[in-house]
């Protein structure tokens, strides 16, 4: 290459690099944009953007009450956007939009995903006065005890739940009856009860497990129910926690966790009652090949949406407890709260508060029409909850049960436990070794 051309190339490259660096230096700071100062002219119509995670049975109700809210508040417009299919994609889209300053004014979000937003002040606290309460305590006491805990950060409540969920045990009555069992009496009360039931309900044909009595979810790509919430609940029944009281050290390698994981490993390797390679348990359930599966109250609507015949033959029973459980509680709770964007204008935030009030004022309809539990005290004492099949079971399982950890590293912590589970059920790694590794990974995150 001739030298002048080389110099020119060097010069051009330098120019482009200079340009790149200038652009980096000149990028706008990632701070929320400030709104224009109010003027004397009448305020223009307020249009808010509301994002919601995807759950088809709820969307029509949301629209109905949004229309009512708009009718009651002339000048208010609401753009209702339903996010992509699964939580992970929705959260990615939401957080990216918020980071880019294009986020919605109010939005639903999984309680465990909210911690990073809460820690960084990206959402505002709930205005309990606008919701008609004198204090946060008054608002909290209008809900079933403990059901708002996952939406609080440092003691402040940031959202009203449009769904509080807990996993209980779904049961296919027909498969029970086909095996000569009485679903009302023979359902498993303890984890230990699952083994004799598996002996009766599992069907093996040509070496293949054609029907399973029960199977865990193992965090496989098709899973719609988190195994970590179940396992944390099982360990909690034996007195186990995820982290110590100070939140400085993981406790996932303690005896309650070891016993829980050992049970799951034995289920797969020793007893061969389940298999992570097979169709995931929830799908197997509505396909009619799994007699019992663990899921939330929303799963009934989901089965109905899949037009599965199992919808007519299913029931829900309490999550099994250990025979020697110290805490007779269920799987860890989670919820979807409606949060308000801190970067939105005060007018929009106020409209969002009003909309939240409207959307949270109809827990009966959300329960009967969408199968979603908004656990107000009034609802829990109403006849409606008795009329909706199985709902009392979920509500009972919530009593005394904690929420999954509200922590900025919540997903990474859950992933560490999930990976330990997969090592245990797909590699047959010794349980203690797998959990020691999980503890070390979580400790690193807690630093």
């Amino acid at each position, binding site marked *: 290459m001739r030298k002048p051309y080389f110099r020119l190339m060097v010069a*051009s490259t330098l120019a482009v690099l200079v340009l790149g660096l200038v*652009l980096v230096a000149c990028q706008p700071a990632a701070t929320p944009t400030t709104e224009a100062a109010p003027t004397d002219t009448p305020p223009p119509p307020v249009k808010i953007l509301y994002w919601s995670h995807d759950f088809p049975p709820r969307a029509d109700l949301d629209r109905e009450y949004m229309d009512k809210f708009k009718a009651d508040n002339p000048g208010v417009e609401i753009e209702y956007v339903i996010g992509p299919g699964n939580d992970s994609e929705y*959260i990615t889209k939401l957080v990216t939009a918020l980071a880019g300053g294009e986020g919605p004014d109010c939005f639903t979000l999984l309680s465990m995903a909210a911690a990073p937003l809460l820690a960084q002040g990206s959402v505002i606290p709930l205005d309990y006065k606008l919701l008609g309460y004198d204090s946060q305590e008054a608002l909290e006491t209008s809900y079933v005890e403990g059901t708002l805990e996952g939406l609080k950060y440092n003691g402040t409540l940031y959202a009203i739940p449009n769904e509080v969920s807990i996993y209980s045990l779904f049961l296919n009555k027909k498969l029970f009856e086909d095996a000569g069992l009485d679903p009302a009496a023979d359902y498993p009360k303890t984890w230990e009860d699952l083994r004799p039931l598996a002996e009766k309900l599992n069907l093996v044909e040509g070496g293949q497990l054609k029907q399973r009595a029960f199977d865990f979810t*193992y965090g496989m790509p098709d899973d719609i129910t988190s195994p970590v919430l179940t396992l944390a609940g099982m360990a909690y029944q034996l007195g186990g926690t995820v982290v110590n009281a100070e939140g400085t050290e993981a406790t996932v390698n303690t005896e309650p966790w070891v016993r829980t994981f050992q049970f799951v490993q034995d289920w797969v390797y020793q007893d061969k009652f389940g298999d992570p390679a097979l169709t995931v348990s929830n799908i197997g359930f509505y396909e009619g090949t799994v007699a019992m599966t663990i899921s939330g109250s929303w799963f009934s609507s989901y089965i109905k949406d899949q037009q599965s015949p199992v919808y007519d033959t299913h029931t829900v029973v309490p999550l099994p407890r250990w025979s020697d459980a110290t805490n007779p509680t269920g799987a860890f709770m989670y919820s979807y709260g409606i949060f308000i964007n801190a970067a939105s204008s005060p007018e929009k935030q106020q409209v969002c508060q009003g909309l939240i009030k409207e959307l949270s004022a109809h827990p009966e309809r959300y329960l009967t029409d969408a199968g979603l539990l908004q656990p107000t005290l009034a609802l829990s004492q109403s006849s409606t909850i008795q009329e909706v099949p199985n709902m009392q079971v979920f509500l009972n399982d919530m009593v005394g049960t904690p929420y999954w950890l509200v922590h900025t590293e919540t997903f990474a912590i859950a992933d560490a436990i999930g990976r330990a589970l997969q090592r245990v059920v797909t590699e047959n790694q010794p349980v203690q070794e797998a959990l020691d590794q999980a503890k070390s990974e979580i400790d690193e995150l807690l630093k």
Partner: protein
Amino acid sequence: MPNTSVSLIMGLVLATLIHKRPWWNIYNRRRLWGLIFVLPALTFFALFAFYPMANAFYISLTEYRLISPPVFSGLENYAHLLEDQRFRISLGNTFLFVAGSAVPIWVISLALALLLAGRFWGRNFVRTLYFVPVIISGVVVSMVWRVLYHPYGPVNALLGPLLGFAPNWLTQRNLAPWAIVAMNVWQSVGFYMLIFIAGLQNIPEVFYDAAKVDGANRRQLLRHITLPLLKPTTLFVMVISLIDGFQSFTYQYMLTKGGPSDATNVIALYIYQNAFQYLNMGYASALSLVMFVIIMVLTLVQLRIVRSEEGLYA
């Protein structure tokens, strides 16, 4: 955009000043015009390649949780990278995937190209058949292969009797990476086959005629004419397939989500997890830059090796 214009003018002035001769010199004027003509392309690259890269480098030096502004943290992310076991695992998985995919892709696509380059009835149909997987979205391919890999699915129906057991292709740690490699090879060979066919068609027929006159057999034709003259095409295939392998994301995301327990977690997926699941954008950027450097070094090494060998034939 004013910043862009100013930077471009600065660049031009810089380019002119570095060159010591007067700018009105006919050669320099010609070069200057050349530079002006490439400016649109340079601007495009500056905006969509250099700027994001410079920005990623800046972010990699910060603690950036996506929602709040980045806070400068020096080389902390890079230091963490050295201690991160999951990074080492995903890096190892990435190399395994690249190495496992690349060699079969090169060999099979070249073999197919040699087979299908000749003239025979139905040639275009067969070529199209091999190319069809390329035009199918990676997501769709993943969904189809997930069904194929089901414990009671077609793959086990075929292989089960031979093996004497039914492997769990996607949930067994030792099998899942290879299951994804096989799928990648299946989808990719059609594309590289086409590149090789184009390369083969560029070899003048007279070389073969001359060699045949000299008594060369088919093997000798392949060894002494086809393969040497296919070197530029081979280099292209090698570079592109390696880069493509290092960037693999869709299959792992769709089929296993990196599991079981990180057995199929590759760098691109690990970057995604850090950026969008754990909201650790600073660390994700550091990972991206390391990945960039790895690909860059490997590409340069490949170029160096192939060019030095080219010299042997010059």
